[in-house]
């Protein structure tokens, strides 16, 4: 069970949050201009890295805010928590 530090409410248990999967995948501004392959890429294709993962979480049982988390998918270390719209922090692999 993770201890996740909500950027707004502070550290809370994983049970208060819901997972939002890979982050920084912006919805295309004009989906109609995309090919089927490009749209499928946006919809389904994921990095799924073994290592640092930049992902979204929602403080569902708290302030209901979405935010980003940089988490290692092997050690589960949480290196950074940052707000929507902020750029991902650089982390050496």
């Amino acid at each position, binding site marked *: 069970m993770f201890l996740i530090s909500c950027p707004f*409410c502070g550290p809370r248990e994983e049970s208060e949050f819901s997972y939002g999967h890979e982050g920084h995948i912006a919805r295309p501004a004009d989906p109609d201009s995309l090919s089927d392959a490009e749209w499928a890429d946006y919809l389904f294709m994921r990095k799924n890295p073994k290592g640092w993962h930049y992902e979204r979480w929602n403080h569902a049982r*708290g302030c209901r805010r979405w935010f980003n988390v940089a988490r290692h998918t092997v050690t589960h270390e949480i290196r950074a928590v940052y707000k929507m719209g902020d750029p991902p922090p650089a982390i050496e692999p």
Partner: protein
Amino acid sequence: MTMIDFSLRRSPLAHRGLIARAASDAAAREAGVTLGEQPHRCQINLRGDAGDSGFLAAVEDVTGLRLPVEPNTVATVEDLSALWLGPDEWLIVGPGGREGDLTGGLRGALEGRHFAVTDVSEARTVIAISGPHARDLLAKGTSLDLHPRVFGPGRCAQSGIAKATMILHQLDANGDGADGAGADEQPTFEIYIANSFADYLWTWLERAAAEYRVAVTAG
């Protein structure tokens, strides 16, 4: 303000007959935990920009409350309190019956700003928990750290309790002065719980409290 026939009102725990079950003051003082419902409370959900001083000022004009911007804190003036729910969300609570004038007043005062005032007085009831084992009881259901060093009077939090979601508020110490000393040994908490979860949570609390001496109080 419109006339409402209060006699028609019915709290989500009314069927539990809690008033009739209420223990004597003496028994309540002896109890490890006391539980009671405070059924009809005015609750206004307020959304707006905490960075907009005009917004804060307008709210203060109507309510007298300086909206708390520090996370998980509560501002209280007389019988009104503002609970911090998020960076741009508060719950203004007060005695039942204030819904109309508060929503009206706020909407008027905030005219022209980006805000939302929503009366949710009917959405949740309040369960008050007090006594020396109040923290132990809550710890069975919530992962919040309620240690006096961490939580304490005048703080609030949204979190889970058992399998429900709640807003928790620790009241200021009563009678024992503002030092909060009393709140350490005899803390009083209020749980705001959605109507449809209230019966589940009440029975859960009574069961979880069974290993302490538990007394029901009349609100």
